[in-house]
């Protein structure tokens, strides 16, 4: 029987894993390190991949999750890892990205994880349920709630100036 190579088309996989990691811990060098580590581990344990258990991206996200969990405690996630900037001199798109990134960063760990899996790694609710060992319906409900909290966070950000936000995040 022929073995399927999970990394046969690496580019979209790298993008999805990076997006997941960046939504989890913030865009930047830490996310790049975690992504590199994920792919190193994936190459090392490529033979353990079983196509019957799921798609390559789900397998890689599982590895990335373990990499994030296994990080040293001094690399704890904080909202400072997420992009923050003065709104005055930015274009709409860039501003949107920064506001979104900041709001995701201020979410609770579980909400951030769900959003990272759904919109970063682009996994379906069913795939997320398999990863979390729970029901698809429960994941859909949790995602809906997480989106609600994110929306509230973004509306709050619109109303309060960046300086106030920074002090709130520090608390």
């Amino acid at each position: 029987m022929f073995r399927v190579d999970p990394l046969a088309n690496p580019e979209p996989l790298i993008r999805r894993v990076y997006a997941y990691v960046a939504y989890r811990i913030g865009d930047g060098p830490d996310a790049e390190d975690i992504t590199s580590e994920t792919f190193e581990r994936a190459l090392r344990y490529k033979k353990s991949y079983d196509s019957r258990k799921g798609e390559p991206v789900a397998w890689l996200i599982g590895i990335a999750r373990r990499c994030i969990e296994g990080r040293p405690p001094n690399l704890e996630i904080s909202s400072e890892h997420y992009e923050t900037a003065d709104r005055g001199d930015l274009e709409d798109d860039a501003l949107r990205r920064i506001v979104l990134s900041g709001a995701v960063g201020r979410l609770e760990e579980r909400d951030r994880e769900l959003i990272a899996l759904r919109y970063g790694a682009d996994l379906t609710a069913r795939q997320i349920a398999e990863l979390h060992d729970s029901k698809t319906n429960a994941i859909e409900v949790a995602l809906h709630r997480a989106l609600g909290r994110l929306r509230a966070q973004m509306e709050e950000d619109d109303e309060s100036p960046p300086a106030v936000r920074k002090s709130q995040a520090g608390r």
Partner: protein
Amino acid sequence: MRSWRRKRESTGLEAELRANRPEPSRELLYKLEARVREDGRRSRAGSFRIAFAGALAGGVLAALASVGGLAYATTGVGQAVEKATRVVHKHGVTTLHKSAARSQYSKPKAKCPKGKKRVRGTCKKVKKARGVNFRRPPFTG
């Protein structure tokens, strides 16, 4: 400036999250892609070598089989093994367990106790003889 805020209703926010997905730097993308492809090439080369060796061995066997070479080789190996066994095998001293001398001068067998007689090597109890003129008593009804 604030027009994008209107799009933030359920699906709008989802689309926004997808559209503004963090992207890896080109350097990271290039580096990781190269690393993965290099590993794939290396493992493919390894499996190609194994497949080539297997195919070559299969081809040789098939060619031999077509001209009866396999039977010839099997016979040759069988004969070689037989010869080797004959050379290596050690012959011990042959002892005869049954000979005229042995039968003549063998150790005398122990006498059977009184009332017993040797039957086929073992001592057995001898039944009392009934006598030549023994007859059953006549039937008297």
